């Protein structure tokens, strides 16, 4: 695909029209509300429809509630036995497929991340109920592994036949005494996407794990990192930087995390939220119950990382920490800059499209802009309106039938464990100096005017977008990867990073620059047509004739 073929001039209204024209009228009307031509201004953000049902028959990028619960949130934990109650498939597909890394080094540390466990329900379990089998499976898991905790996940048929997984979990927990057993009602059909599963997972983690540790953490600057899943080792890099700055990460939710980390999360002094979508409510609950304030951070992009570190420094307001952070940034930046400058001539002016997750499509735009690349279009698979428009819309969100069946838990200040981390005056002073707590502006205000923001993009629209706008790179997931590449456009997976990573932090930025440089300059994209296809007319004869 040469530059010449690019649509230099394009009108977003035309593009939107083209995306919609083939749909039956009802589908087109619905999709029209989820495709937005950005016109965000200083004070207003346009409204998008999000977190609504997927249209049957439309090839969606989305997964299900179970995928969000087991796959995203609980999957990366290392010393909890994750046991899936259901037929075999669900457990099989979530087996090591998200590239969550785990460094439970040393033989004394438990690491169950490489195991896939299931009750493998059979016909008879569906007919007569699967509780007995689940109970026995929990017993067998306990006898085989002696874990600190066993987490149970319900898949589609379990909800239908009405197995009471929570009762079974309670019973087994009491029986064992030394093993925490809890369950997740995360049947795939609940909610409209993975997002419901994140919510269900987080609620249970908050209820059954957080605050259960006896051990007191006495480190100086204690934070929690929420919404970081250690894909391709992102969490390792963030931890490296935090450690270097002298900041202690008490608990990551949930990349490479352990039972004890969750259990002591209530002892942190600040919660830092990476992926807003998957976990913002936990940050709220930690604040209400334990008094831990929270801020939105972003460790994707070197500048974003520096900014987030400075924000943490400002919060603790301790000169020693502030200085250390500046020192670390000064130390790390030169090598980042060097690589960035190296790739800039090749990446500047190139264009990207990002359709991933519920935060990534936003975060990764930082990295692209550091490389001089513009994002033409972006959107999420399972975000809600607040992820697009900012948190101020949360009070106005309609609670529809699909959200109503996801449990909301009520929390209040813990009589013993609640303690305010900062005095009212200190908080006020911070806010006055421009510090923002509990703030997330969302994707839309950050994107250029007239870019296209599309919720729940599907295969048909993706293909059309790529044909019309010919971006230099497209970012989505494995299901999208090869149809885009067949069109001659490099495609980078941003859920699981293909084989790459980490992309967070300073070293991650370097990796990402190099990876994108490789993708947009690879010679392979110039081989699409064979010589005889480029010049099919036979205009001369071969020399030896």
């Amino acid at each position, binding site marked *: 695909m040469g530059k010449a073929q690019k649509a230099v001039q394009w009108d977003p209204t035309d593009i939107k029209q083209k995306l919609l024209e*083939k*749909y*039956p009228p009802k589908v087109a009307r619905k999709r029209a509300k989820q495709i937005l031509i950005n016109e965000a201004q200083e004070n207003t953000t346009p409204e998008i429809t999000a977190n609504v*049902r*997927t249209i*049957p*028959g*439309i*090839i*969606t*990028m*989305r997964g*299900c*509630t179970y*995928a969000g619960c087991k796959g995203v949130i609980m999957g990366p934990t290392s010393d909890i036995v994750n046991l899936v109650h259901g*037929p*075999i*498939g*669900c*457990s*099989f*597909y*979530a*087996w090591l497929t998200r590239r969550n890394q785990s460094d439970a080094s040393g*033989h004394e540390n438990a*690491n169950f991340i*490489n*195991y896939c466990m*299931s009750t*493998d*329900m059979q*016909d008879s379990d*569906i007919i007569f109920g699967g509780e007995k*089998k689940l109970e026995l499976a929990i017993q*067998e898991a306990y006898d*085989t592994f002696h874990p600190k905790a066993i987490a149970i996940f319900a*898949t*589609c*048929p379990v*909800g*239908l*036949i009405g197995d009471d997984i929570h009762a079974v979990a309670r019973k087994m927990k009491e029986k064992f005494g030394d093993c925490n057993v809890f369950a997740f009602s995360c049947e*795939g*059909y*609940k909610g409209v996407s993975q997002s419901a599963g994140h919510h269900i997972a987080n609620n249970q983690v908050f209820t059954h794990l957080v605050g259960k540790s006896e051990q007191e953490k006495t480190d100086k600057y204690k934070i929690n990192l929420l919404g970081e899943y250690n894909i391709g080792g992102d969490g390792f890099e963030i931890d490296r930087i935090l450690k270097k700055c002298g900041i202690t990460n008490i608990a990551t939710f949930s990349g490479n995390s352990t039972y004890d980390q969750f259990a002591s999360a209530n002892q942190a002094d600040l919660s830092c939220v990476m992926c807003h979508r998957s976990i913002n409510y936990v940050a709220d609950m930690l604040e209400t119950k334990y008094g831990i304030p929270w801020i939105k951070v972003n460790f994707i992009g070197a500048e974003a990382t520096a900014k987030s570190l400075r924000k943490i420094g400002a919060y603790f307001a301790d000169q020693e920490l502030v200085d250390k952070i500046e020192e670390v940034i000064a130390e790390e930046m030169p090598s980042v800059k060097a690589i960035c400058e190296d790739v800039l001539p090749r990446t500047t002016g190139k264009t990207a499209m990002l359709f991933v997750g519920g935060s990534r499509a936003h975060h990764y735009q930082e990295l692209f802009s550091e490389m001089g690349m513009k994002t033409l279009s972006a959107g999420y698979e399972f975000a809600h309106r607040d992820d697009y428009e900012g948190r101020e819309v949360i009070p106005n969100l309609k609670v529809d039938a699909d959200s109503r069946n996801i449990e909301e838990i009520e929390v209040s200040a813990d009589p013993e464990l609640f303690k305010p981390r900062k005095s009212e005056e200190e908080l006020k002073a911070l806010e006055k100096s421009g510090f923002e707590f509990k703030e997330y502006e969302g994707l839309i205000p950050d994107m250029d005017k007239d870019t296209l923001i599309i919720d729940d993009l599907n*295969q048909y629209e993706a*293909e059309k977008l790529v044909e019309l706008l010919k971006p230099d790179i497209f970012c989505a997931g*494995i*299901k999208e*990867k*090869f*149809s*885009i*590449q*067949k*069109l*001659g456009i490099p495609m980078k997976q941003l859920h699981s990073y293909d084989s790459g990573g980490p992309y967070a932090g300073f070293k991650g930025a370097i990796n990402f620059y190099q990876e994108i440089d490789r993708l947009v300059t690879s010679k*392979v994209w110039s081989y*699409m*047509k064979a010589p005889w296809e480029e010049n099919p007319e036979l205009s001369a004869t071969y020399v030896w004739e």
Partner: protein
Amino acid sequence: MLLRHTPKEVTERKALTINPAKTCQPIGAMYAALGIKGCLPHSHGSQGCCAYHRSTLTRHYKEPISAATSSFTEGASVFGGQANLLQAINNIFTVYEPEVIAVHTTCLSETIGDDLPQIFDKAIKEKKVPEGKTVLGAPTPSYVGSHVTGFSNMVKAMAALARKSENRNGKVNIIPGWVEPCDMEEIKRLAAMMDVKINMFPDTSGVLNGPLNGEYHMFPDGGTPIEDIKSSGDASGTLALGEWCSADAARTLDSKCKVPCSVLDMPFGLQATDRFIDALRKIAGTSVAEEVSAERGQLVDMISDMHQYFYHKKVAIFGDPDQLISMVEFLVAIDMCPIHIVTGTPGKKFERRIKEITKDVPYEVNVKAAGDMFLLHQWIKNEPVDLLIGNTYGKYMARDEDIPFIRWGFPILDRQGHQYFPTVGYKGGIRMLEKILGVLLDRMDRDNPEEKFELVY
């Protein structure tokens, strides 16, 4: 140690499956459906299943896998999925314009009890299925059997489309079973060499090993045209390769259209390929083409040349029943000793066949149908092997136990080649041997002391 918690001592588990050697039915149905020309597979259930099946097939083939879903939410799960499926059929024909929609159920729609034929009738009555287009369906409850069962059920649903013939067309139906696109190509090549006119379904060659040329076609040129599937009732006979994958479809053709069938093993390795070629010879009523005999001779030659490296080497192998039966037979034929054999798919018949094939192996042979990889690993800890063969998930055991490892089967998520180089037929046998030798000799080169590091073997 990645699987550091796997104890050596084997205790019986009645309820807990750990590291399964199988997955669920719909993914097999989806793969089979991709072998129909112009077909969009459709998963009737919640969208998560479809996303998972597409992801796994995509990772295995490194190709786009399109499939639609009924996207159930809670409402559909309570009131039934008819409305979703009707809407889906309408949307699919309008937006993607496939020739065929092949619907399979999931454990969700099965548990609710959605009746596919009834919904299809309604869709046709409501004119949601355009003239000349086909909708077919297979029940694939995930709590029965495995992905292999799902494959078989979808192929059976294809066979059910066959019309009863007035006049035979002289062709032979070949139902190849769950093999790779390149294997299907190889089967076609062998039949052509034998001058046998065949009608093969499903056929994923040309669908799941497509070129990169700047064009994306949701429906590539490959696949069996639906007309050919319908005309399979006109054939003079059916060769079904693999009892688990293909027999049901072949028997459906027999009972419905009186097309006689014979069920053979999948043509992996020497003897199973011999039986396949011999069957083709009898059908064609000719002698075996010389080129085919020459290929066979090359395979036998390679076995004799390298016999010392195969002889009495112990092998652990896991995978799907039809594939395993032929491959274990091949390993025994080259004097290797397959001693730990697991399939996740249930079936006592499998255990009997394997016992029969391995009866002269001079070690105790462990075999289990409806077993898992955790058990296989424990067996290996108790009786170590020289070689492990299985899908990608075997790499964890291979690393922990330091065993040479060959990826073969489904899914292979971390390597390429399986979609391009066949392992069926004599040429496939040669490739398998090359792979076995490769890992065994690499191992010797790595482990031998320096003075034993030799240029020639």
